[in-house]
C-alpha cells in the first residue's frame, strides 16, 4: 500500500520528519506511538497527501505520488480516509451534510450544491451513523453534539467515503477512556470487515499494545522501532518516551482541544502537531 523511502519534512527550518522509511501492506493494521511533537501528525498529513515531503519519496501502490497530476492526486485522496483528533467537522452544518461530505470526491459541484438543499443518498448516511451507534442524530446540528458523538460523525464520514486506507490521527485523545476503547474497537472491526488498511496514531500505549498487531515507535521524526506488540519491551518504551512525562502515555492522554469544539471562525492558528 504505502512505501516511504527516507522521507524528510522541514517546516521553515524545523525538522518534523527526519528520514522515515516504512512499508505498509494492503489490509495491515498499524499503530503509531511516541511522545507528542515526535512528528506523528506530520507523518499522517503526508500519508493522506495533504503535505508534500521536503525530500524522499512516497509511493502509493507503487506509484510515486510526486509524479501525479492534480486530477490523479484528487482520485488518490478519495481512496484515503482521515479521522482527525479535532474531528475537523464543519460545526454549523447538520450531521447529514458532514457525513455526506465523504462523497465530495465523487460528486460534481452541482450535485454537491443540490445535496445541501435536499440531501442525496440519505440512506447511506443513516446506515453509517447506525454503524457508529448514533442513528438518531441525522438532522442534528453538528456543533450541538458532544465530543465523542462528533468523533463518531467523523468516522461515519469516512465510512461514506469508503476508502481503501483509514488514517486515524489521535482519534480518542479527546474522549473519555471508556469511549476510547469503543472507538478503537469500532475502527478495527470496520476495517477488518472490508479489508481496509488502518493506520492509527495513539497517545495511549496500552490501547496500542492491546489492539494492534504491529507497533511503530516514533521519536524526533525518526522510526525507533517497528515490532509486534509482544516484542515491545518496557525498556523500548522508556527509551521512546525519555524526557517526556509519564502522564503522556496513559490511557486517555491529555485532554487537549476539548475547549475548542464548535468555534466556527477563529483567527488562523498554527496547525496543531
Amino acid at each position, binding site marked *: 500500500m504505502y512505501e516511504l523511502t527516507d522521507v524528510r519534512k522541514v517546516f521553515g527550518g524545523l525538522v518534523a520528519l527526519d528520514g522515515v522509511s516504512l512499508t505498509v501492506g494492503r489490509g495491515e493494521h498499524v499503530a503509531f506511538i511516541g511522545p507528542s511533537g515526535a512528528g506523528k501528525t506530520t507523518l499522517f498529513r503526508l500519508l493522506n497527501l495533504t503535505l508534500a515531503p521536503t525530500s524522499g519519496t512516497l509511493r502509493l501502490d507503487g506509484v510515486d505520488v510526486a509524479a501525479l497530476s492534480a486530477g490523479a492526486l484528487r482520485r488518490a485522496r478519495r481512496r484515503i480516509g482521515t479521522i482527525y483528533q479535532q474531528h475537523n467537522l464543519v460545526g454549523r452544518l447538520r450531521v447529514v451534510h458532514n457525513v455526506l461530505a465523504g462523497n465530495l470526491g465523487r460528486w460534481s459541484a452541482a450535485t454537491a450544491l443540490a445535496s445541501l*438543499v*435536499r*440531501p442525496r443518498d*440519505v*440512506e447511506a448516511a*443513516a446506515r453509517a*451513523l*447506525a454503524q457508529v451507534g448514533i*442513528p*438518531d*442524530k*441525522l*438532522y442534528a446540528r453538528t456543533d450541538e453534539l458532544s465530543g465523542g458523538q462528533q468523533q463518531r460523525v467523523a468516522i461515519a464520514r469516512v465510512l461514506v467515503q469508503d476508502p481503501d486506507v483509514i488514517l486515524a490521527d489521535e482519534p480518542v485523545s479527546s474522549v473519555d477512556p471508556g469511549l476510547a476503547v469503543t472507538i478503537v474497537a469500532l475502527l478495527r472491526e470496520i476495517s477488518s470487515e472490508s479489508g481496509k488498511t488502518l493506520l492509527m496514531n495513539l497517545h495511549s500505549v496500552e490501547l496500542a499494545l492491546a489492539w494492534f498487531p504491529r507497533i511503530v515507535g516514533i521519536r524526533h521524526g525518526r522510526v525507533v522501532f517497528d515490532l509486534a506488540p509482544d516484542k515491545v519491551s518496557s525498556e523500548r518504551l522508556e527509551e521512546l518516551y525519555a524526557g517526556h512525562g509519564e502522564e503522556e502515555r496513559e490511557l486517555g492522554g491529555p485532554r487537549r482541544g476539548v475547549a475548542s469544539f464548535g468555534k466556527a471562525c477563529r483567527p488562523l492558528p498554527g496547525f496543531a502537531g
Partner: protein
Amino acid sequence: MKAAGRHAAPSPLGRWWPTWLALAALVVWSWLGTRVALGPLLSGEALAAIATYVGRLFPPDLSAPALRAAAVGAWETFAISLVGSVLAGLLALPLALGATATLVYRGVLYERQRPGPAARGLRLALYAASKTVLAVCRTVPEIVWALIFVFIVGLGPFPGVLALGVHTAGVLGKLFSEALEDVDRAPVEAVQSTGAGRPAILLYGILPQALPQFVSYWLYRWEVNIRAAAVMGFVGAGGLGQRIYVAISLFQEQQLLTLLLAVYIMVTLVDALSAWLRARLL
C-alpha cells in the same frame, strides 16, 4: 431509513420560509420599483454604447493643466478630510464624555456617592442631551450638512470641513462613548480607591484604556472621510468632487478619467498611510 423516520427530515427551507418569502417579495418589489433593466444593459447595443463611452475616457488627459488641476483638487480633498476629521475628533470627545452612562450617572463611580435627586436629574439631562446631539449629527448625511453649511458660509472647502466635522463627530462620539463604557472596571476601582477625584479617575483609569480604540476609530473614519471629501464638491464644497462634476457635465471624458485616477490613487494612499499609522500607534 428508520433513523430518518424517527427524525423527520426538515424541509429544505425549514423554519426559515417566512424570512425567505419576505426577502423574495422585497427583492421583486425593489426590482419593479427601480426599473432595473439588466437585460437591455447587457444587450449588445448597450454594451457597445458603454464600450464607446469607456473608449472616450482613454487616454487620460495627462497634459500639464489637467494634471495640475487633479493635483490641486486631490490636495484640497486631502486637506478637507484631514481637517474635518480632526475637527470631528475635537467635537466628539466632550460629547462622548457626556454620553457615557458610566461616567455621568451610574456604575462604579456612583456606587458610594449617589447624587441627590436634583443633581441626578441634571446628570440624566446632560446624558440625554449629549446622546441626542450625537444622533442628529450622525443621522444627517455629510452631504446634507455640506448643503446647509454652503448656505451659511458660502462656497469653498470650508463648508466641506464643517460638514465632515459635524457628521463624523456624531459617529465618533457614539463609538467613543461605547469604548468608554466597555473599559475594564478593575483599574477604575483601583484608582478610585486611592481617593482620586472623578477627573483624575477619568485621566488615569479610563482614558488610557480607551485610547487605542479612539485612535483606531479615528483612523477608520479618516479613511471614510477621504472618500466623502471627494464628493463634497458636488454641492459646491471644494475638492476633487467639484472638478469631477464639471468634467462630467461638460463631457470632458479624458479629464474625468484623470480625476478618477486621482481619487483612486489618493484613496489608496490614505488607506496605506492609515494602515501604517495603525501599525505604528497600536
